[in-house]
C-alpha cells in the first residue's frame, strides 16, 4: 500500500520478550501497524503469534518491551486498557456465551457495571447501524447458541466495532469458515480498512495472507524472521520464510483401493443441539484408500466420527463392517472390530492427563489378556508394551511412568498413534489428527497414516484444513448439514469447487445423481 509509510502509526510493539520457564515464546518482537493497513502475522503453530497477541491484549505481561497504541504506552497486564485504547480482538475460539443473546453478548462490559439500567434501545440502534455499515447481518435477539459459526464470527466483529475499535486483531479467523464465508469476511474487512481501521490478521494460510494483507510479518520460534510487502513477494517465498527452508508440497502416491471395509447405508442420527446429525448417509471406506472428509466444522462431522468411534448408534439405517451389520455398537465393539480411533481432542478425549503413559497406552486394551487376566492387571506387561510404543513411535519423555500432561502435543499424539496402530487396525478414523501440532509432528502423523493405508487399511481423514485433505486423500467427500456429497476422486476438484459443496450447494442434485 503506497502511502502507508507516511500514514499514522496506530500500533507499535517494541521489542516484546516473553519467557515461559525455559521457553522463549517471544524474542524481541517488534511490529508496527499504520492507519488503514492490514498486516498479516504469519507463522506456524507454536511460532509465538498467540502469545504476542495475548500480551498486546493484556492477558499476559511481557518480560521486556512495550506496547504503544496511538502513540501511548499501554499499561501491561490490563485487558481493559487495550480495549479502551481502541484495540478489539476476535479470538480463534469465540468468546461468546451461548445462552445469552447477540445483544447481550455485544453489550457485555460496555457499560459501567454499577448502573441501575442497561440502555437497550440505544444498543439496539447502534448494532443495527454497524450491521448495515459493515455488512454484518445478524439478529440482535437471537440466542448465540442458535447461530451458525459464520454468524458467530460476525457477532465477534460486531463486539469489537461496537466498542469503537480502531484496531482489529483477528486470530485465525478463516479456520472455521467456508471459502464463500471467507470472501464475505474479507469484504467486511476491506470495508473496515476503507473506513480507516487497521487490522492485524493472524494466519498460517498463505493464499489468504496474499489476498487480504498489505504487509506480512513472519514469526518463527518466537522471532521475527522476515517482513515483506505482499506486492513484492509470492506464496513460495512466504512459505520458505515461515518454515525456514524451501518447501514443496509433499507428493503422495495414490493408494490402491480394495474391498469396502466399512459401509454406512442410509444412516440417520439425531441432531444434538445446534449440531446436525447425519441425514441418510451412504459411505464406503475401502481398503488401501484414504477417504478425506472436507467441510466446515459443525456440519455433522462430529456425528459421523462419533458413530464410527462407537459413541453413537444409527437412529435408522445400517452400519456394516466387512459386510456384516453391527447390532451391538459401542466404543469397545468398534475397537474389537479393528477400528483405530484418533479423536479430535487429544487432551479431552484422547488421553487422561493425570494418567501415566502406561495407563494411557492401555486404555483400550486393559480389559483383556495380556494386559489383565480375570480382572487382575498385569502392570509389567503393560509397561513393556508402553516402552515398545515409546521406542517405536519416537516419543520424547522421561519414561513410561511420566504423567502424560507433561508431554507436548506432538508426543501425546504419537502415544495415541502407538496405542491404536500397534494392533494393525483394518480401519482408521483420524479426526483432525494434526490440529495444533508443529510441522515435524504433522509430517510424522501423515506418514503413519500413509503407511497404514499402504498396508491395506481403510482411512477416514476428517479435517477442516482443505489443503491437508487434498494433499492426502485418494477420494474426497464434502459434508454439509449432515449430508454427504458424492465421492470425488483425487485431483478432479479444485478448492473453489469443493468450497461450493462446503457452503451447502449441490447436495440435492448430488443425491439425485447417486440414486
Amino acid at each position, binding site marked *: 500500500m503506497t502511502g502507508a509509510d507516511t500514514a499514522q502509526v496506530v500500533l507499535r510493539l517494541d521489542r516484546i520478550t516473553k519467557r515461559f520457564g525455559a521457553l522463549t515464546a517471544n524474542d524481541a518482537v517488534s511490529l508496527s501497524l499504520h492507519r488503514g493497513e492490514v498486516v498479516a502475522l504469519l507463522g506456524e503453530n507454536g511460532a509465538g503469534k498467540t502469545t504476542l497477541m495475548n500480551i498486546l491484549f493484556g492477558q499476559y505481561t511481557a518480560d521486556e518491551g512495550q506496547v504503544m497504541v496511538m502513540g501511548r504506552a499501554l499499561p501491561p497486564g490490563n*485487558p481493559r486498557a487495550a480495549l*479502551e485504547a481502541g484495540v478489539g480482538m476476535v479470538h480463534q475460539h469465540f468468546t*461468546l*456465551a451461548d*445462552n445469552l443473546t447477540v445483544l447481550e453478548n455485544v453489550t457485555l*462490559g460496555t457499560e459501567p457495571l*454499577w448502573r*441501575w439500567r*442497561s440502555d437497550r434501545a440505544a444498543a439496539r440502534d447502534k448494532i443495527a447501524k454497524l450491521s448495515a455499515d459493515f455488512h454484518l447481518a445478524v439478529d440482535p435477539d437471537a440466542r448465540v447458541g442458535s447461530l451458525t459459526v459464520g454468524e458467530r464470527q460476525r457477532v465477534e466483529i460486531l463486539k469489537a466495532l461496537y466498542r469503537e475499535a480502531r484496531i482489529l486483531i483477528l486470530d485465525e479467523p478463516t479456520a472455521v469458515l467456508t471459502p464463500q464465508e471467507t470472501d464475505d469476511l474479507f469484504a467486511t474487512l476491506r470495508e473496515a480498512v476503507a473506513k480507516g481501521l487497521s487490522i492485524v490478521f493472524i494466519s498460517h494460510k498463505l493464499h489468504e495472507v496474499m489476498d487480504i494483507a498489505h504487509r506480512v510479518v513472519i514469526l518463527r520460534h518466537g522471532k521475527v524472521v522476515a517482513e515483506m510487502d505482499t506486492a513484492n513477494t509470492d506464496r513460495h517465498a512466504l512459505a520458505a520464510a515461515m518454515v525456514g527452508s524451501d518447501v514443496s508440497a509433499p507428493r503422495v502416491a495414490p493408494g490402491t483401493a480394495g474391498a469396502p471395509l466399512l459401509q454406512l447405508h442410509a444412516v440417520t442420527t439425531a441432531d444434538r443441539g445446534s449440531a446436525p446429525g447425519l441425514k441418510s448417509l451412504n459411505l464406503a471406506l475401502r481398503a488401501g484408500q484414504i477417504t478425506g472428509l472436507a467441510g466446515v466444522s459443525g456440519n455433522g462431522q462430529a456425528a459421523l466420527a462419533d458413530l464410527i468411534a462407537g459413541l453413537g448408534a444409527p437412529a435408522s439405517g445400517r452400519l456394516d463392517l466387512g459386510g456384516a451389520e453391527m447390532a451391538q455398537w459401542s466404543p469397545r465393539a468398534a475397537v474389537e472390530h479393528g477400528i483405530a480411533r484418533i479423536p479430535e481432542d487429544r487432551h479431552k478425549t484422547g488421553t487422561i492427563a493425570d494418567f501415566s503413559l502406561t495407563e494411557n497406552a492401555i486404555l483400550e486394551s486393559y480389559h483383556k489378556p495380556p494386559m489383565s487376566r480375570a480382572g487382575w492387571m498385569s502392570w509389567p506387561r503393560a509397561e513393556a508394551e508402553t516402552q515398545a510404543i515409546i521406542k517405536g513411535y519416537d516419543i520424547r519423555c522421561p519414561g513410561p511412568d511420566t504423567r502424560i500432561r507433561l508431554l507436548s502435543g506432538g508426543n501425546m499424539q504419537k502415544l495415541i498413534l502407538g496405542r491404536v496402530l500397534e494392533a494393525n487396525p483394518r480401519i482408521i478414523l483420524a479426526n483432525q489428527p494434526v490440529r495444533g501440532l508443529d510441522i515435524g509432528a504433522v509430517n510424522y502423523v501423515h506418514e503413519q497414516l500413509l503407511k497404514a493405508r499402504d498396508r491395506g487399511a481403510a482411512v477416514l481423514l476428517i479435517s477442516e484444513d482443505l489443503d491437508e485433505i487434498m494433499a492426502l486423500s485418494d477420494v474426497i467427500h464434502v459434508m454439509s448439514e449432515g449430508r454427504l456429497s458424492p465421492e470425488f476422486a483425487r485431483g478432479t476438484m479444485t478448492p473453489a469447487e469443493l468450497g461450493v459443496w462446503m457452503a451447502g450447494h449441490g447436495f440435492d442434485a448430488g443425491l439425485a445423481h447417486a440414486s
Partner: protein
Amino acid sequence: MDILDILLSASFWAAAIRIASPLIFATLGELICERAGVLNLGIEGIMVAGAFAGWMAVYSGLGLWPGVAVAMVVGMGFGAVHSLLTVPFGLSQHVVGLGVTLLATSSTYYAYRLALPEVTSPPKITAFQPWEIPLLSDIPLIGPAFFSQTPLTYLAFLLVGVVSLVLYRTPLGLALRAAGENPAAVAAQGLSVTGLRMGAVIVGSGLMAMGGAFLTMSAFDSFFFEMVNGRGWICIALVVFGAWKPGKALLGAVLFAAFDALQIRVQQTPLGADIPYQIFLMTPYVLSILALIVMSRRAEVPAALMVAFNKGER
C-alpha cells in the same frame, strides 16, 4: 378437617408463606452464586451461622435490623472464605462447600457454648412481629395470608424482584450471568471473572445467612442446634427446580412450603394420626428429590457452573 378446607384457610397460606421465607432468602443466595458459576455447598452451615449471629446480636442488645445486618456480615465472611478457595484457586467446589458448612456449623456451636456456657435451654428474644399492611391486610383470606407477615417476609419477596432486576436489567447482572455461562467472554472484555464470582458468592452467602436469621428472628425467637435441619440442601434443589430463575425459584419455594404446611396440618387430622409422623417429616426431602428428577432433563443449567476459571492457567 378436609384437605380442601385446609387449602382454603388463611392460616394455612400464612404458614406456607412463613415457611417459604427463609427458603426464598437462601435460594436467592444460592441462585446468585450458581448464576455466576459457583456451586455453594456452604449454604447449610452459613444458614446455621446466620441464625445464630442474628439472634445473638439481638440477645446482646442490638436492634432487630442491626441483628439482621450482623447475620448478613457473618454470612458474607464465610462466603469470602468459600470464594477465595473456589474462585482464584479453583479448588473443588464440592469439597470446599462441605468444608465451609462444617466450619460455619462448628464455629457457631463453639461460639454458642462460649457465649452461653451455663444455659440448659436457649434464651428467647423479642422477634420480628407481624406487620399488617394497611388496606391490603383487610382483604378476606388473602389479607391475613399474605399481608400480615413479618417485615423479613416482605423483604424476601421484595428481594426476588430486586435480584431479577439486577440479573436481567443491569450491566452488572449481565456480566454476572456471562461469568456463569462463559467466563472467557467476560475476561475478554477486560472484566474480572474472579471479582464477579467472588462478589456473587459473598453477596449470595449474605442472603443465605439472612435465611438462617429468619428462623431465629422471625419464625421462632430462639436458637437451637439442628434448627436449619437440611433446609440449605433443599434450597439447592429449589434452585434447580426454579431453572436458575428468581421468579420460578420463588414459585418453587412457595409450592414447597405449601406442601410442608399441608403435611403439618394433615398430621393433625384423624387420617394423619394413623400414619407415623416420620413419614410426614420425610416429605420435604422426598419432594426435593422428586423435583430434581422432574427437572433433570432440562438444560437451563449455567454452562460454566462448577467450571473453575483462571485466565492464565495453561
